[in-house]
């Protein structure tokens, strides 16, 4: 079993990136947010934009634009039991595929992929389809998320409230 987080210095590859992203997807479906938090670098951003074309996330309104501080607060919210929507969150199953290498340097790889997520809550299945972009840094401590951008194909339309992470 590959454990990407315990890798010694290894060159980035699409295969290792895909395995990391699959592992991340499973952590999110299992709502194992504490372990998910450990995948991130301190400078990493988790972004769910609204504008399908924007790349300047700081200058635009997003669904989520989380630095380390906001991510920690979001995880606290999802796990504390204080949020009625998180306590009763939908169950999710997601598949991630169609991996494509966007760019690669000595220690960073950027990978785009497709995510199909089905959420189930109170008799209703909801589909969330999105283009993902992961920027992964390969470090001696393992692979770290530098950036994850989730572009929902219906981001500019109205969504139902979410009690889980995409």
């Amino acid at each position, binding site marked *: 079993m590959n454990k990407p987080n315990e890798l010694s210095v290894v060159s980035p590859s699409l295969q290792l990136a895909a395995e990391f992203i699959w592992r991340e997807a499973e952590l999110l479906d299992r709502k194992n947010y504490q372990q998910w938090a450990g995948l991130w670098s301190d400078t990493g951003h988790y972004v*769910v934009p609204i*504008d399908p074309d924007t790349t300047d996330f700081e200058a*635009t309104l997003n669904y989520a634009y989380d630095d380390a501080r906001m991510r920690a607060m*979001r995880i*606290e919210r999802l796990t504390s039991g204080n949020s*009625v*929507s998180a306590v009763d969150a939908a169950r999710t199953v997601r598949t991630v595929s169609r991996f494509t290498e966007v760019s690669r340097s000595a220690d960073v790889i950027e990978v785009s992929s497709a995510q199909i997520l089905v959420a189930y809550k109170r008799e209703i299945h909801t589909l969330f389809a999105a283009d993902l972009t992961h920027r992964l840094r390969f470090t001696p401590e393992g692979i770290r998320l530098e950036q994850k951008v989730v572009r929902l194909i219906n981001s*500019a339309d109205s969504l139902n*409230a979410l009690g889980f992470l995409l």
Partner: protein
Amino acid sequence: MCSHDTHDSYQPLTFAAKPEQLVQADRVDGSMYYDPGLFELEQERIFYKTWIWVAHESEIHNPGDFKTTRIGRQPVIVVRDKTGAIRVLENRCRHRGATVCEKSKGNATGFTCPYHSWSYGLDGKLRALPYPDGYEDILDKTELPLRSLRVDSYAGMVFASFNQDVEPLSDFLGEAKRWIDLFMKQGAGYPIKTQGEHKFRFRGNWKIQLENTTDGYHFPIVHKSWMSSVDEETSEMLSFMTDEKAVTHALGNGHSVMVMVPGHVDLDQDDGTEPLQERFAHVTEALSKEMPPEQVRRIVRSLHGAGFNLNLFPNVAMSMAFFRVLHPVSATETEIRHIALGMDGGPEIANRERLRIHEHFQGPFGFGSPDDAEAWERVQRGSYAGKDVPILVNRGLNREVVADNGDKISHATDEGGMREAYRMWKRMMSDE
């Protein structure tokens, strides 16, 4: 004190009940949340009768700028024409009924129907249609413009009505105008502009959302996770549960306002004693390099917006730092838009800080809205039970007082704002 209806005479109501029977001074019937017949009647008697908020002027700044939206379930285009006038046009070709525009916003020189290329000007006039020989002597282009609604605006808030005989907007807003003026002071000397929006849906009736805007009672409970995520100064600022100065005013015509931060009702009033929040230190520091301390204070104190939620019946609220717009989709589904606001021409660092504040609470991914939506959906689901059990809106009736200007005032955690909305609902729904 307000008069009470007798409490022991409550009768279970049915779909056959007249709308006015569904609302009493201190309670409403649960079927108001799910009766589809009532929903249709609301479309006719409320959404197609009164002033409905459609835009903020900053969304359509230049000639040709437009946005599409809905009033009730009818699609409309809000557009600034060549003369600079704002028009609201039915988004429906006069030929066979297709929408002439499906973009959410943009800039155009006119609107052309994709079906047979009938083309209309920004003022709605039918300019041209192809192969006109088939219409010779039977069609007068001047009689077939995109139909125009009544339009008026106050302080940049643009309203429209299908009812050509609707009362003047100024009369409709009445006492609420004073609060709209106060709300706009968060521009800190700059005009207000919109900065994007979160759209989300919940499976519930629109009035559940309408009630929520002046429901201070739910705040520390539903928003516990948000409260625990913000800094102490912000949570302290919104700890109004036992603050006697935190009040709700019922303003008449269904409008109401809930004051949560009494010291921020009029942002121009600043005695200089309130410390600027530590969380905004980076903004304060950056602004201090380019402007005098008074202006820095004005901008930073305004980052959370005005210290109140103003609920304008039936579809828009001006809530602290954003606009809340609701679109009823069906009796059991509602779309909500939370529009972020900023200073037009103001410092970028402050406008960005406002975006981050908005993202923190609002929208389907925020720390606040999803918990609201969960509570609202639970109201919708629960309201089907106990058909002889009313929805209570009586909190604070024991301490409601009438001010000299006619405002009914009670505590911010009371339900006076809901009672005001339901008085207006009853009045409009009872008109034949």
